């Protein structure tokens, strides 16, 4: 392992950098936990503030409250947070271990792999470092990889080692003696570019992207390969692409910070006013009252006294910024995260994966999502292609019910029997088809059906592998192609093997060998592929399959009527969301073919403009085709995807599909899963390559949509929604390069008007850019959902990242905030858990602020009667315990158990989700309401007891207007009022809510008797001064009359408001019902790419045991 890798361009000679793949995720150890954790906690503004308060309280001149009123809550808060941090850290520590896989001759964990190591990879392994391919088990050191994790494309790709290293094969001696030196570019995020030089035995070899296997790929169809590690860990291209992971905070967090700031300002101004009041009082009264209450020695003037009082009030009124706010919020989020983990309905049994809330800080944001950015492959689709229907010579075969099996056909499906393929020994047992008529047609020997399947079994670039006799394994470049060939195989046209010049097909049990004359390969412009074969009968046939739009122009005029019928069928297929291909053939004249063949080889050999010339030659022969039929392949969606998307749409959540895949495929899936509906008015496709064209397209579309609206009054596509935004019934399809210009805003404006948006050909970073764009300009909550490494960046950027787990790669999941294994769980996550979390959080915040305002502002009213002397209304112990003990459990109960509507209704009426998106339940306005309500309550809470005790006596003549009795009355009233308030807020009374709510009130009285008991007060007379107050005051009728009065006065407006509020119905958006005829659309989609045809004809991939150093002629 002496290979040396130097990064950086040119002649830099840095010694091998030791970069490990392991990421340290755990922060603490047993020793540094306490100091580090405390240090971190005090970095939080709130905690630091309370520390500051504590110091203020220790200054005797201004201390208006005993020190323990702050210390006790602070200690509790700090220790709860510390415990939570410790648990979080332990979880992190475990996940650090989990990520590793094993491979290598000396089996080593991936985390230990270092730059410069040579490692062995085996079939179906996931690569977790960027590796320079040295040699492989396949001829010519080819290595097949699947890059679905990287770009979402599902086809196989080929990488080839350079010849020098490929000679080493699996000779360990040679490999371990390999002492080449690689100089290459420094780590970057370009997935499709790599430049480097290998210096080996004094020679320089150029390295390019084709030699590099990137992290996140999966090795396919290759028994083993050896590679040199170039980049590891964070330097790999994928990781470079995954963007920085930022600490996510929710909107509520931001709002909370703003509100806390507001409260500070309010607090400051309050203290200032009270200090002014104190100044006036000291001047008018305090000065003359000095006989009985002399000023302190250090107080020289009332101004100075007022300055001190400012701080004294600052201490007293600090409970407006409740210390337990942040910790309560964290507890609530934690609890609501656990509900997600525990949810059985988000547990996917086949893969044994429960849903996972990997962050516990974002819950309520789940109830506010407006934009969902979804990956396509592996997220919406299962990445499985199924031969579903076909049309042969004007006849449709294939079950129609099949597609609807999920919604209504579950029972129907059970009655359908799978077609029995037992007549065919080579059939793939996993293949299933539900229409017997097709098999019967095959068995009867229908000429067209036979020709159709023959063409499917010949016209492809699949490679077969037959390790055990009769067990064929197809290695297809795309799953579509695999599905077609497998279908042909099951119906009795088994593609068995190929060499570079022949194709062996078992036709209804008979072995026939076709001579492969040419492969006219696929590319994006041609959208078709053809093969030319010579049958054993010496006929020359051309089979062609391709997009209907292209192919129907190339048909022979004689099949006009058949074409019309087939096109009708294709429309049906397309509207079912199937991926269609047309199949045609042509019988060639031998002489004509010879002639063409010559032209073809000339074109192939030409040096200039070869591509162009070849395609012209191809076109010459691909005409006058005879239509055979059409195939329809189902890109199998994940279970329940269309229903989920329909539900999310009803909840006014916009779904954007961001995929690395091609436009056709993406659009097709969009139709299949209801993102696009057939009655959508218009599809805008932005395909321009530069700013100008893209801009033009956008402007045109914007005009079409909005002008249409003006013309027809109500709006043709874009009825104004209730919330004032335009809601169009049109969709937008974007290509990646639309993003490259400076048209962000224009693009976004158009995109956000549309109902659905699809972005194709996205690199991982571009996906993130799109999310970023929406985040930046739309103040809406975004959610990104994906399964592969290519989604990591957007998952990290979005407000909420959701990973689909249970797929092979763990990248997305490990970077996500929430993970589950089926897309359909998203609706439950958002509409049930998200909505509940949001509602609970909002209720919690409103109530929490309210109860603290009501609690604190009573001091302000009292100031007017106590000479602005920073006298508290309550007993200091009540202040200590109020937030921590007396009122914490009820509000926690509310925010952990409350449900305004149950899950069934949440899912049945997705419209209930909308208020969250518009942030209606807790915003600045709601906060002001809380403040006003708090002020009102505190007013009632002060003046009712004051009126009650004013000059009033007990029935034995002793006075009750003393300070301590007054305190007791006010604090009891306060607790009763806030308990009643929470009882009004609670809509879902579980046993636990009852216990928490009424239990806390009962507990208050118990504590009261304890704190005011003789024993405790005599033991610590200075700390517990309220001896006997409970006994003397709680038996007074006046007190209870006053408590009831305060309660009723505080409840009355709330009940009235709650009663009158639902009487104002939310205006529903005007629904314009416009009928649109479904436009004809082609469902052509094929996840296929040029590249295999040449390889096959070159013979590179042939497994025929040819001599290795054979000078097998192949064209470069």
């Amino acid at each position, binding site marked *: 392992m002496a290979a040396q890798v130097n990064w950086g361009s040119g002649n830099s000679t840095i010694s091998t950098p030791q970069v490990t793949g392991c990421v340290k995720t755990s922060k603490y150890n047993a020793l540094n936990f306490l100091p580090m954790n405390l240090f971190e906690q005090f970095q939080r503004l709130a905690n630091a503030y309370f520390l500051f308060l504590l110091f203020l309280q220790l200054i005797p001149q201004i201390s208006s409250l005993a020190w323990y009123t702050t210390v006790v809550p602070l200690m509790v808060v700090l220790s709860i947070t510390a415990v939570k941090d410790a648990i979080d850290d332990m979880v992190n520590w475990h996940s650090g271990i*989990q990520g590793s896989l094993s491979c290598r001759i000396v089996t080593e964990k991936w985390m230990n792999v270092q730059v410069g190591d040579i490692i062995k990879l085996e079939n179906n392994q996931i690569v977790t470092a960027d590796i320079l391919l040295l040699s492989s088990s396949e001829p010519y050191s080819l290595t097949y990889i699947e890059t679905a994790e990287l770009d979402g494309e599902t086809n196989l790709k080929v990488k080839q080692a350079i010849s020098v290293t490929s000679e080493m094969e699996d000779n360990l001696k040679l490999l371990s003696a390999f002492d080449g030196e690689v100089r290459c570019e420094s780590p970057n995020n370009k997935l499709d570019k790599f430049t480097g030089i290998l210096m080996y035995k004094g020679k320089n070899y150029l390295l390019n992207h084709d030699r590099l296997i990137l992290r996140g790929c999966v090795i396919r169809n290759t028994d083993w390969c050896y590679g040199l590690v170039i980049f590891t860990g964070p330097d790999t291209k994928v990781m470079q692409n995954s963007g920085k992971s930022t600490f996510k905070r929710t909107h509520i967090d931001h709002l909370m910070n703003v509100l806390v700031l507001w409260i500070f300002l309010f607090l400051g101004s309050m203290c200032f006013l009270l200090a002014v009041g104190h100044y006036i009082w000291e001047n008018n*009264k*305090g000065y*003359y009252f000095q*006989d*009985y*209450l*002399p000023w302190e*020695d250090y107080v020289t003037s009332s101004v100075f006294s007022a300055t001190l009082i400012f701080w004294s009030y600052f201490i007293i009124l600090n409970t407006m910024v409740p210390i337990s706010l942040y910790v309560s919020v964290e507890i609530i989020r934690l609890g609501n995260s656990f*509900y997600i983990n*525990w*949810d*059985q309905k988000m*547990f996917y*049994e086949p*893969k*044994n*994966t*429960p849903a996972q809330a990997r962050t516990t800080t974002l819950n309520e944001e789940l109830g506010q999502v407006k934009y969902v950015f979804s990956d396509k492959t592996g997220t919406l689709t299962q990445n499985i292609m199924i031969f579903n229907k076909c049309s042969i010579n004007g006849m449709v075969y294939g079950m129609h019910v099949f597609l609807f099996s999920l919604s209504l056909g579950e029972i129907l499906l059970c009655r359908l029997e799978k077609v029995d393929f037992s007549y065919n020994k080579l059939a793939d047992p996993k293949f299933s088809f539900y229409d017997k008529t097709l098999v019967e047609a095959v068995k009867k020997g229908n000429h067209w059906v036979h020709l159709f399947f023959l063409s499917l079994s010949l016209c492809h670039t699949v490679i077969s592998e037959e390790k055990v006799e009769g067990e064929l394994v197809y290695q297809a470049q795309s799953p579509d192609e695999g599905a077609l060939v497998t279908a042909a195989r099951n119906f009795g046209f088994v593609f068995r093997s190929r060499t570079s010049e022949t194709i062996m097909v078992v036709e209804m049990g008979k072995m026939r060998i076709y001579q492969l004359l040419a492969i006219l390969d696929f590319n994006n412009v041609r959208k078709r592929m053809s093969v030319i074969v010579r049958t054993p009968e010496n006929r020359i046939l051309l089979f062609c399959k391709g997009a209907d739009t292209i192919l129907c122009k190339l048909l022979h005029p004689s099949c006009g009527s058949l074409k019309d019928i087939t096109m009708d069928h294709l429309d049906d297929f397309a509207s079912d969301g199937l991926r269609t291909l047309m199949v045609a053939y042509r019988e060639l004249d031998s002489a004509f073919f010879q002639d063409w063949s010559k032209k073809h080889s000339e074109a192939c050999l030409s040096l200039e403009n070869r591509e162009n010339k070849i395609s012209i030659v191809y076109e010459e022969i691909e005409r006058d085709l005879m239509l055979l039929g059409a195939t329809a392949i189902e890109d199998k969606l994940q279970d329940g995807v269309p229903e989920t998307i329909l539900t999310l749409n009803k909840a006014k959540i916009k779904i954007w599909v961001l995929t690395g895949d091609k436009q056709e495929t993406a659009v097709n899936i969009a139709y299949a899963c209801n993102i696009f509906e057939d009655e959508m008015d218009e599809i805008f496709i932005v395909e321009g390559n530069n700013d100008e064209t893209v801009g033009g397209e956008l402007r045109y579309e914007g005009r079409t949509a909005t002008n249409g609206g003006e013309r027809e009054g109500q709006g043709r596509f874009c009825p104004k929604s209730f919330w004032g935004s335009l809601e169009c019934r049109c969709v937008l399809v974007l290509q990646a390069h639309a993003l490259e210009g400076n048209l962000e805003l224009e693009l976004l404006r158009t995109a956000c008007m549309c109902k659905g948006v699809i972005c194709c050909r996205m690199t991982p970073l571009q996906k993130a850019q799109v999310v970023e764009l929406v985040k930046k300009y739309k103040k809406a909550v975004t959610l990104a959902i994906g399964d592969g490494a290519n989604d990591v960046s957007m998952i990290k950027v979005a407000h909420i990242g959701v990973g689909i787990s249970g797929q092979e790669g763990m990248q997305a999941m490990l970077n996500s905030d929430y993970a589950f294994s089926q897309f359909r769980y998203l609706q439950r996550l958002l509409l049930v858990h998200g909505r509940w979390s949001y509602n609970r959080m909002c209720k919690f915040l409103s109530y929490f602020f309210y109860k603290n305002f009501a609690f604190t502002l009573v001091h302000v009213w009292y100031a007017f*009667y*106590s*000479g602005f*002397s920073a006298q*508290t209304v309550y007993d200091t112990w009540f202040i200590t315990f109020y937030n921590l003990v007396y009122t914490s459990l009820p509000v926690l109960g509310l925010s952990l*158990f409350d449900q305004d509507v149950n899950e069934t209704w949440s899912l049945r009426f997705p419209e209930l989700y909308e208020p969250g998106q518009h942030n209606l339940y807790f915003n600045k306005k709601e906060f002001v309401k809380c403040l006003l309500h708090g002020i009102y309550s505190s007013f009632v809470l002060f003046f009712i007891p*004051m*009126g009650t005790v*004013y*000059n*009033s*006596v*007990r*029935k034995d003549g*002793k*006075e009750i*207007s*003393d*300070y301590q*009795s*007054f305190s007791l009355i006010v604090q009891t009233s306060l607790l009763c009022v806030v308990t009643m308030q929470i009882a009004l807020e609670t809509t*879902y009374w*579980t*046993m636990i*809510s009852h216990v928490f709510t009424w239990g806390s009130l009962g507990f208050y009285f118990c504590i009261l008797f304890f704190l005011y008991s003789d024993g405790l007060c*005599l033991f610590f007379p*200075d700390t517990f*001064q309220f*001896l*006997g107050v409970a*006994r*003397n005051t709680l038996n007074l009728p*006046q007190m209870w*009359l006053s408590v009831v*009065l305060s309660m*009723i*006065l505080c409840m*009355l407006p709330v*009940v009235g408001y709650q*009663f009158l509020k639902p*009487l104002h119905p939310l205006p529903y958006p005007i629904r314009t019902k416009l009928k649109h005829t479904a436009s004809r659309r082609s469902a052509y989609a094929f996840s296929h790419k040029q590249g295999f045809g040449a390889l096959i004809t070159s013979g590179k991939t042939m497994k025929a045991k040819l001599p290795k150093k054979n000078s097998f002629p192949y064209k470069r």
Partner: protein
Amino acid sequence: MTWSATARGAHQPDNTAFTQQRLPAWHPLLSAGIALPLFFCAGLAFIGLGLGLYYSSNGIKELAYDYTGDPGTGNCSVCAAAGQGRAPPPRCSCAWYFSLPELFQGPVYLYYELTNFYQNNRRYGVSRDDSQLSGLPSSLRHPVNECAPYQYSAAGLPIAPCGAIANSLFNDSFSLWHQRRPNGPYVEVPLDRTGIAWWTDYHVKFRNPPLVNGSLALAFRGTAPPPNWHRPVYELSPDPNNTGFINQDFVVWMRTAALPTFRKLYARIRQGNYSAGLPRGAYRVNITYNYPVRAFGGHKSLIFSSISWMGGKNPFLGIAYLLVGSLCILVGFVMLVVYIRYQDQNDDEEDDE
């Protein structure tokens, strides 16, 4: 897959009502059918209660006299003028004459009322040492710092009781004389000066320090009385059960008031012929005028009051209950109107559809 090795369903969450958020629950809805009757019932109940409270408060008799001595308000103005600007004010006494045309229904209680006196000022309120007052000898010698500047006397002796509250102890005294017949002799009406403090305060909270050789005076040796006091704390009363820290006037004073206007019980009239109340006739209250209040604009009054089942005269609760009851009914009506209108609207909408 790492977890495919584990048994199927191994990671399945528990199916309990708690984890699945399906706890049985009561789901109350604030419907018109509940809210409206609630409002009306509550309103009626409150009005009833309010009427009762109002009348019982109105039935209580009060007789008050402001003896602050503002010029021209009676013979106490002499004392007030004499005490003006002199500290300590000279001993002075004045009297208040009044006559009752009919029986003042008993039991009658005598209160003094101070206004503009900020017993609830924070600095005033903390200026006491509760451990000293609970009889702890160590605190007797070392009063807490909160008592400053009444912590130590000028001579350096600890003040007992320390603090501003104790120092400002109300020291006017009253005696009541009854003239049964016109021009007849005035007979002193016995005032019961015990049992005016809270039972818990007198028996539990306030305690004298342990006696030294059976003498309270010795127990307080080495301490100084508060500067405003004329006599040490152990001489507040000759009655050994009413002197020192457990002197009832002192205990009452030490229970600081919540508001700047407050009443404190001075005595109960319940002995002899006066247990049923004060009979008709002329009365004289002899006032020993010691306590200066005019400096800070305060007033002091004397109040005779009778008591009902719910204490003294305080019309507040009655009026408040009446008001809130009416408010409930009013809001109930408003809600009813809105509700009916809304229902009509709803019906119309349903007809339209």
